[in-house]
């Protein structure tokens, strides 16, 4: 579980985070959503320690991250995996070497044991046979999967994903979402996802934090979003007519009316 209280962060005169508090739950996919410039990425970077908040406290499983020494943070970070927006794979290394890198750095296991673990995680993310390819030789979706494999290779307790679906087609996005959700439940990890993708919000949003101008505007799960009367949230999530229709359908379904399948059934 990750809890953060009253996080404030400014860059010069610009206040980016203005007293954000929330709890990210274990075994759930916790989503941070909001428009561009709402402070999602800065919040996530504060949570992993890439930025120091000006004020506030971050607590990982009951231990204050804010008060930790740099050495203690290093130890904690070995329990953190992160998937970056651009995947951040080491371009001079093959897929296999990328995934093996954390094992080389932090374990003294034999080569065969490390390779067994590498193959296990690559198989888990459906990347069998790509071991010897370089990042430049694989697609965007594959890069994301390598990023996920590298993030989970040390069995982390916390997984952070920054825009995991950016630049991916809807079908690949769904595969990535499904994979993240499955891994979260399978390894019982606390997953924090920064996203703009409304499909992700509706499909894997167990615990959603909606931010506006550096402040927490709303929180809840994907079911609660449908019935929320928060105007800003509704405008943000159901921005298009198509999404509004989808919302109506979900509402009807939730209220016990016809199921989506029945509504979408071709009329005779």
């Amino acid at each position, binding site marked *: 579980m990750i809890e953060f209280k009253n996080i404030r962060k400014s860059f010069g005169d610009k206040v980016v985070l203005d007293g954000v508090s929330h709890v990210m739950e274990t075994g759930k996919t916790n989503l941070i959503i909001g428009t561009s410039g709402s402070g999602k990425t800065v919040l996530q970077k504060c949570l992993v320690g890439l930025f120091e908040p000006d004020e506030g406290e971050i607590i990982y499983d009951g231990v204050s991250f804010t008060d930790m020494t740099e050495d203690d943070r290093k130890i*904690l970070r070995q329990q953190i*995996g*992160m998937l970056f927006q651009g995947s*951040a794979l*080491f371009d001079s290394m093959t897929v296999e070497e990328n995934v093996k890198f954390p094992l*080389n750095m932090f374990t003294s296991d034999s080569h065969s044991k490390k390779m067994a673990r590498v193959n296990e995680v690559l198989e888990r993310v459906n990347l069998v046979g790509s071991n010897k390819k370089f990042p430049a030789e694989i697609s965007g979706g594959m890069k994301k999967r390598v990023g996920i494999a590298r993030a989970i290779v040390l069995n982390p307790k916390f997984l952070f994903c920054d825009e995991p679906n950016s630049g991916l087609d809807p079908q690949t996005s769904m595969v990535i979402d499904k994979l993240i959700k499955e891994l979260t439940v399978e390894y019982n990890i606390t997953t924090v996802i920064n996203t703009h993708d409304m499909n992700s919000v509706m499909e894997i949003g167990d615990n959603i934090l909606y931010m506006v101008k550096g402040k927490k505007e709303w929180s809840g799960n994907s079911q609660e979003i449908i019935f929320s009367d928060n105007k800003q949230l509704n405008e943000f999530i159901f921005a298009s007519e198509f999404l509004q229709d989808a919302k109506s359908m979900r509402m009807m379904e939730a209220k016990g009316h016809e199921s989506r399948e029945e509504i979408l059934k071709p009329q005779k």
Partner: protein
Amino acid sequence: MNFFTHFGRYLLMLKGMIGKPENAKVYWKEFMHQCSDIGIGSLGIVSIISLFMGAVSTVQTAYQLVSPLISKSTIAQIVRDTVILEFAPTLVCIVLAGVVGSKIASELGNMRVSEQIDALEIMGINTKTYLIMPKIAAAMITIPMMVVLAMVLGIYGGRLAGSASNILSNDTFDKGLMENFMPYNVTFSLIKAYTFAFIISSIPAYFGYYVKGGSLEIGRSSTKSVVVSCIMILLADYALAALLL
């Protein structure tokens, strides 16, 4: 950002890079990789430059020494001392500032922009120790070696040019090489080589590590790092000459 901010951050970077490696084996591998990149990768250009600077020095010294009272072997002495004292350390290091410096700055800059450095940080790795220290250590080992090689090749190039242009025979050149030789000159040249090696690895590392923005900024910081490194080499060259000669 003013000079003092840059300088302070540069010192903090150097301080931050001194730390215990997370895994000595991985660091050793990275160090060897850098030695190969910086050392072997620059061997060709250093050899060519050294041979030609020696050759040109012989021809130009002979052109200026027209007095019949000065023996031909003096040409070899002048070539030897200029190559050892100035050409081998300074000229070679200025060239290496371009070759090695731009490579270090753009490599680190690209890693910063593509969030690879952030990825390493999140894994719990001290990125300054892992990415910068092996580069500086490799430069401190390989660049003085290349300067020694440049001394040998420079003098050899001078000897070749001397005989090829009928300026002086190989025997006269060899005789001149051994006249009034001061071993301290080699020591002084190596002190310069170590100083310049530190400059051409640490300054580009600073510019690359702290780059902000996109690919355009990587190019800019790479150019800036080469310019600053060259200026610092020339300043250090003068300071060392004034202090140690």
